[in-house]
């Protein structure tokens, strides 16, 4: 009789995968937070009714700033950090 063998992941690899998942979620979660805020409070988005608005009202829109910070973090920080985390774990194996 044959049985399928399931190899248990070593605890360290599982922890590393969880860390990578957590880091990769920070940016998108922040972007989502900004977008959800914009949907819940559209009056905070001057871009939806730009006519007659001053420079600062058009540049500094809190929900967009949150989404922008999340996107910046995901692209500039999280992406290379995930590559480094993978390289570090590969070297430790």
């Amino acid at each position, binding site marked *: 009789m044959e049985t399928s063998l399931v190899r248990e992941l070593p605890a360290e690899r599982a922890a590393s995968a969880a*860390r990578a998942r*957590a*880091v990769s979620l*920070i*940016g998108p979660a*922040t972007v989502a937070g900004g977008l959800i805020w914009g949907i819940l409070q559209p*009056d905070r988005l001057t871009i939806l009714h730009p006519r007659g608005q001053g*420079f*600062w*009202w058009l540049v*500094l829109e*809190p929900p967009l*700033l*949150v989404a*922008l*910070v*999340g996107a*910046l*973090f995901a692209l500039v*920080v*999280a992406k*290379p*950090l995930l590559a*480094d*985390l993978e*390289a*570090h774990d590969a070297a430790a194996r």
Partner: protein
Amino acid sequence: MQPRAEMVHWGFAAGILFVGLCLLAEAIVGQEVWRMRPWRKYLWPGVAFGMGVLLWPVMAFFTNSSIHMYAHGSWAEVLMLAGGAELGLVHGRLRSPLWRLTWPLAYAVTGLAFIIHEQNAWFFARSAFLHHLLGWTFAVGGVVPLLLVWRPRSAVLQAGMAVTIVAVAVMLFADRDVAPVFGHLSPLAGPPHR
């Protein structure tokens, strides 16, 4: 052409949120991985130092009262001190971990300045409420960077500091010049704008 005070708060909130996210990522992956690329170790201390520098023009141009000027000036000083000390530590120029005491100092000064310079009660308006809340958040949250001086590699404390910073950013994003808080707005605060 000068932005409203609330807009300046939102701009700083964006910078503070970025620092909070970096701290959170560092807490998750650990210092060893975080510092694998040389530029990354200078990232959040550099942003913190830069925000300290940018607080000087805020102090100079938003002088609606002396006490505001002192508050913004003291934040500029302690943020530059703590950010600069952190830069020195990660670069290796500074060696004593006691330099990290600049962070609890920054929290304490910031908290006190928030609480002292807000002269209205909690439910006067949203900005008053947030000033009190921010002040107490910094005053109580200062325990975390203080403990980090002795346990610098504690992931729990690092995450605690990151969450505190993110919470501060959320509070600053919620700030409005004149707006109600939980339905309360003193008639003395003036008419709310959109």
